[in-house]
């Protein structure tokens, strides 16, 4: 089996704080791989290193055969990403956001139109294509980001907590969609989530990360067997302990949000 993502001994330090500590893992081509961990475990930091946004302090990464540090353009072409925080231009319409993405990724003009229409239908936003994004609900924005991330036919799709803040219907719909994409287009999916039952349902393999260390990898079944538990959630709690985490990362985010509102 070919590995489409490889990480060897990857470490990320922010000053003297180690956010990700010497982790290694591989993701197989065509697999749905879930990265699970409590708040502040290092999931987003790992995704940022995989997607060229942060340089690892140490270690080697390969993304579809390319090094995200030295072959940025090739690495970037290989993936689509839905970030944990919003990344749309609110002052543009849904369609304009899509067109901007298509131009950034040099999607050929003839493919662009059909693909754009297909994807907006797929996420149920075709009727709203001319609305400004700032008029969208959280769920609609998420769906648009997913459509956008697929516009350039990426081989790998990164989803960083894509269902946070969505209602159960939308969450279900989204995972069905991800499953379908994976099956029909063979896209490799690398996702992080807080919701264990979602990972249990959709992921072929999971890695559990805590305090920057990977504490377990395997199929959901393997992890349940290894910990002698019935659900992935119980397995997760057994592996990471019951202590409530410092919500440092989220508190920081919250403050930033508040400041934004203040300023508007």
């Amino acid at each position, binding site marked *: 089996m070919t590995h489409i993502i490889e990480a060897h001994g990857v470490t990320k330090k922010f000053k003297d704080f180690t956010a990700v500590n010497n982790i290694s893992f591989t993701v197989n081509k065509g697999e749905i791989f879930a990265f699970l961990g409590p708040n502040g475990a290092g999931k987003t930091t790992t995704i940022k290193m995989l997607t060229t946004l942060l340089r690892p302090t140490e270690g080697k990464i390969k993304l579809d055969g390319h090094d995200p540090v030295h072959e940025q353009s*090739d690495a970037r072409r290989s993936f689509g990403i839905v970030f944990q925080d919003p990344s*749309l*231009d609110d002052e*543009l319409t849904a369609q304009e956001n899509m067109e901007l993405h298509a131009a950034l990724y040099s999607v050929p003009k003839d493919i662009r139109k059909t693909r754009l229409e297909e994807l907006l239908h797929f996420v149920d936003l075709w009727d709203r294509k001319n609305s400004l994004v700032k008029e969208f609900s959280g769920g609609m924005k998420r769906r648009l980001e997913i459509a956008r991330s697929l516009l350039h036919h990426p081989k790998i799709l990164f989803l960083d907590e894509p269902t946070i803040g969505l209602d159960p219907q939308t969450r279900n719909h989204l995972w069905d969609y991800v499953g379908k994409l994976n099956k029909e287009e063979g896209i490799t999916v690398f996702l992080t989530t807080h919701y264990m039952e979602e990972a249990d349902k959709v992921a072929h393999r999971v890695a559990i990360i805590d305090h920057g260390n990977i504490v377990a990898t395997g199929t959901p079944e393997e992890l349940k067997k290894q910990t002698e538990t019935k659900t992935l959630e119980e397995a997760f709690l057994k592996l990471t302990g019951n202590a409530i985490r410092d919500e440092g990362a989220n508190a920081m985010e919250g403050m930033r949000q508040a400041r934004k509102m203040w300023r508007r």
Partner: protein
Amino acid sequence: MSTIYILWLRQLKRYSRSKARMIGSLGQPLLFLVALGYGFGPIYEKAGQGNYIDFIAPGVIAMSILFTAVFSGIEIIWDRQFGFLKETLVAPVSRTTIMIGRTLGGATVAMIQGIIIFLITLLIGFRPESLALLPVAFVFMALIAIMFTALGTAIACVLEDMQAFPLIMNFLVMPLFFLSGAMFPLKDLPGPIAVLTRLDPMSYGVDGLRGALIGMMEFGYATDLAVLVIISAILLAIGSWLFSRIQV
């Protein structure tokens, strides 16, 4: 190429959709034009210097370009806070290309703002000396716009959020403006002020623009052009370098 175009277009769309911003940023130049034009005009004219409105019209046009350009450049901070910046940073295009697209977009917006002020000065009675020199005036407007958009971008790359914005307005943009000769002639100034005005790149933009519009100059076109082009190139290079190091 299409990247530069789409990022340029994005900024024009954002600008045209934000009427409040467009109208709001006309307020200050208009205030200067009216308050100073009619307030100081009589003194200036008594001193035998000619029509003060004619004198400050180019200065006020340059000022509105300066403010809009710095602000457009600084907009990157917003893109960073609202998250859109990430979308451009993971795209398979070089950061220099992104930087160029943004700078041209911001500079175009500043240019449009300058042209609107120019039209308003015409309404209140300003008459450029020669129509043939209008293209030269536009070249200087564009150079001022590019130079200060690049400056704004470079500053934005090193700031985390908008909290330092008033600091930048008060200790950088306002001095750039007041020391530029936009409001008073640079001739016969006392020593230290004369030095400061000559260190201010904005002075050369104002000088070129005023030369083209009313035929009054201190440094001459060659000096003005050389200074503006060189400073713009330096600021663009610094901005690109800082932008390439942004991590989110």
